[in-house]
């Protein structure tokens, strides 16, 4: 502990850590950290359960191993971000932002790879990189920095400047097209704008524009038919493309059939027989619901609620607007992704390709989300310095 603490930035300057009650390392939010770790553990179990294969006696651990690697990478990134003073990110934000935009531009160029109809990945040997996941963090950093710079007085001109920050990556993401990530981007932008002090009438106007955009998007030829169906099938599960209605129905069956106590780990028939599609990624909540039941799924939601509460509380406790807005960005992203992802598996939200934070398999998403938690921790730890 001593040697570890000794590497914290700032602590060395202050000499002995024991004597400095404001030392950042003393203010790590253990509840936030513990909850995220618990969620990641549940996620690891469920990723394993849904990818271990149906062969009795022999378990396929290849996906599990990759998932653990992603978690390790995510944890490392979280630790690094936590150690850095969040105020220094203000300086790094433009560089990070420009880099991510360049990657997004690259991914829609022939350099990117197409998976499931969306050109959203770079294939780097065995690793798939999804720049849009990092774009969310870049936008949070950019908006929070700019918002803090503007203070609470945001007029139309400043609003327009703020909107260009998510605007550029949003356009690039829609070119992939990846409506799920785009909606998350919109959600976290709205969250930051609300708290940053954008006037209520502007917020209302923006919401109207957003709604029009969604309707326009659905009625335009911009999205593939299957993407439109995925987005609208939850409104009318008996209509739509057969496959989408089928997937949604199987997803609900998986969760519903879990009952109160669940079928037991590795015993979910929908999960083990691969009846639900994309189960280790976007539909992992169905595995939780089926195998761990209401008890397990509700526990997971409670853990998420604790994480969200802690992030909200840290925003409240933050000593400056930058900290508030960073937390609000992460909060909005988390809340929206959780609601959107779990809601879609239960048939109350459209089907979009958004991962369940800390649970779904996926490298870029895991790393980006842990980085987000790191940001929040950094804000919390430095509320006195």
């Amino acid at each position, binding site marked *: 502990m001593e040697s570890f603490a000794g590497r914290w930035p700032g602590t060395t300057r202050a000499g002995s850590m024991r004597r400095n009650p404001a030392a950042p390392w003393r203010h790590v939010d253990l509840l936030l950290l513990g909850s995220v770790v618990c969620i990641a553990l549940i996620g690891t179990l469920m990723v394993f359960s849904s990818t271990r294969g*149906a062969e*009795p006696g022999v378990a396929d651990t290849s996906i599990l191993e990759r998932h653990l690697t992603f978690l390790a990478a995510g944890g490392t990134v979280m630790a690094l971000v936590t150690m850095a003073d969040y105020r220094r990110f203000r300086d790094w934000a433009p560089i990070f932002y420009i880099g991510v935009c360049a990657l997004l531009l690259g991914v829609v160029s022939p350099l990117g790879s197409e998976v499931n109809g969306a050109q959203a990945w770079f294939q780097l040997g065995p690793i798939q990189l999804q720049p849009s996941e990092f774009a969310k963090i870049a936008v949070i950093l950019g908006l929070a920095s700019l918002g803090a710079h503007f203070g*609470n007085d945001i007029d139309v001109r400043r609003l327009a400047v703020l909107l260009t920050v998510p605007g550029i990556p949003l356009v690039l993401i829609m070119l992939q097209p990846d409506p799920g990530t785009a909606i998350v981007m919109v959600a976290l932008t709205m*969250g930051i704008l*609300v*708290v940053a*002090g954008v006037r209520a009438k502007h917020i209302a106007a923006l919401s109207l524009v957003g709604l029009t955009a969604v309707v326009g998007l659905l009625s335009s030829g911009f999205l593939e038919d299957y993407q439109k169906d995925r987005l609208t099938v939850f409104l009318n599960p008996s209509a739509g493309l057969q496959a989408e209605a089928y997937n949604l129905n*199987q997803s*609900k*069956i*998986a*969760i*519903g*059939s*879990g*009952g*109160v106590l669940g079928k037991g780990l590795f015993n979910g*028939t*929908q999960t083990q*027989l*691969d*009846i639900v*599609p994309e189960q280790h990624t976007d539909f992992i909540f169905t595995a939780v*619901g*089926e195998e761990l*039941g*209401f008890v397990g*799924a*509700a526990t997971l*939601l409670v853990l*998420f*609620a604790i994480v*969200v509460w802690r992030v*909200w509380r840290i*925003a*409240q406790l933050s000593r400056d*607007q930058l900290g*508030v807005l960073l937390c*609000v960005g992460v*909060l*909005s992203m988390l*809340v929206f992704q*959780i*609601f959107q992802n*779990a*809601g879609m598996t*239960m*048939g*109350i939200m459209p089907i979009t390709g958004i991962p369940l934070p800390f649970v779904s398999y996926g490298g870029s998403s895991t790393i980006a989300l842990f980085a987000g938690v790191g940001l929040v921790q950094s804000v919390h730890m430095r509320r006195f310095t």
Partner: protein
Amino acid sequence: MSQRIESPRLRLGVLGIVAIALFVALFARLWYLQVLSSESYLEAAEANRIRIVQVEAPRGRILDRDGTVVVDNRVSIVVTVDRVRFADLEEPERMDMLRRLADELTRYGSPATVDQLIDRVNDQRYSRYAPVPVAEDVTEELKIYIEEHEALFPSVAVERVAVRRYPFGTRAAHVIGYVGEINDEELEERQNKPKTYIRGNQIGKTGIERIYEDDLRGMPGQTAFEVDANGDPVRILEDLSTPPIPGDDVWLTIDIETQALAEDLLAQALEDARNRRVSANNLPNRGNAGSVVVTDPRNGEVLAMASFPVYDPGDFINGISSKEYEYLTSKEADAPILNRAIQGEYAPGSTFKLFTGMAAMASGLRTPDQTINDTGAFTIEGCRGEQCRFRNAGSKAYGIVDMRRAMTVSSDVYFYSIGADFWDARGRLGEEALQEVVRRFGFDQETGVPLPSEQDGRLPTPQQRKEQYDANPGLFAERNWYTGDNVNMAIGQGDVAVTPLQLANGYATFANGGTRYAPNIALKVTRSGSPETVKRSFEPRINGRVDIDPTQRQAMIDGLVGVTTREGGTATSTFSDFPNDTFPVAGKTGTAQVNGKADTALFAAFGPAQDPRFQVTIVLEESGFGGTAAAPVARALFDVFAGVAPMPEIQPGGALVEPPPADGEVEPGTDLESPASRLDQIAEGGAD
């Protein structure tokens, strides 16, 4: 300034409330799915993962009354073609495949041509849903070859199927019936049976196979597979899988040796009839069809039920072609599919006199001793012209006859007068007095034997004639009933029709003193592999009783025994060296006239007369005199029943042989000849 600080806090609060609302929505939805509607989702999940495949159970066996296996099962290897996949094949691949298949079938000992295969694939008698069998009973080697060269034979499959096996060939075919693929109608009818049916299953179509279907059919098992999203089996779910349970065994009342003997005698008698010279003014005997029924008068059990011509139930294995089926039902082939014992309707001729006589005595029109003078012809009183004169066969005059003698010599005149008297007494007895008594012996109605498609015969009445005429005035010549109609009916002519089993049952009812049983054809049902476990047993079923005065009965028996024993009896010469003292046979010959055909020869008998244990009825179409053609069959059977001749032994395949002598040594020089050939040694009797 305070507003500036308050504002972000307020806005953060709004964000918090939004977050809480969203989480509440998730919890609510989760509660709804997992707690409130969990049950229906659980059902859906089960249905998702499980595919159930029905496994047919072996069908029960059919045994004779001693437990000899008459029908069981064997495995047949069948080559099938899936029509849907076959239709999807492109030319020339389709023809190439057929050519290869025909070559391989031929090479492996099941010769076939491409044309034959095409005919089979296109044959409409096969269900559209199941693969079409194109070759049956192919060798194991061919199965292996085709399976190893799967790619060369698209749409072709080789399967093992359980099919019926008939160890005695065509023996008792009409009683047993046959099985075939279930049709839409049967499937509909049997939807709620515990032993479930699916398309392609076998079901009893006729005979015992049909009537005892519920016993014979095994309980299909099921194999439950857990399947993945593609429907591919992942593993077998033992908990949900059940093994098939073989069907139960049905024991017949039939004795297979007696049955086979009756069949051989029937075929031989018909052949003899065909070869018999007839006088120029008679139509030649075609001897084309007939029936022999043997029952036990004490309980109504059917010991043998033969029908000619026969068909081979083995032809129905793996399905029968439309052409073959058409042949089996065609008039030209005398419809071998018919079980004439219950489906053939014949004028009973003089065999009917038993019932006319009993009716006359019961109604007081005659006493046993009352005599008339038989001058060879009978004239209806007050009627003039040829249509009022009724003659004996051959215009023979029998002189003074009472009831006994009239039966023995078969005096038509005696019974003509009874018929006329019944009509004359209609004011007192009613118009249908004769029919009413006859009906009590089981005529004009089904006997109730548990076999399908039984006919009920005909017993015309004045009332019926009126109704028929009024319904179709152009179709019937006559609306009124005349004395002559009664006269004709009295000797079993004039549109009276009976089935051989009805006639047998009528004689059995008389023989046992008046108890009319519904004939039984099955004894019991036992569990497969456990002959001691009786699941059902079929007790004698009493269908009615006839009050018979013992004196009248004795007089009638005397007359019937006279038929086989007394001077002038119509079958006396046939029974000349029979042990009449110890085993007297009471019988009656019949020679029924049929328009445009040679006479139907009949003989109905029971014995021993004092304590009847066997009732034998023979009906031979277009075969001449009953005494000549039919009585020898009864004689040969009674030889065995009386112990004069040994019961022959049945060989695999169904052939009968004389059993070796009791001491085990075959006398040198004696051939093991067909028991039926003994018919030739039995002296042929006189007239009717």
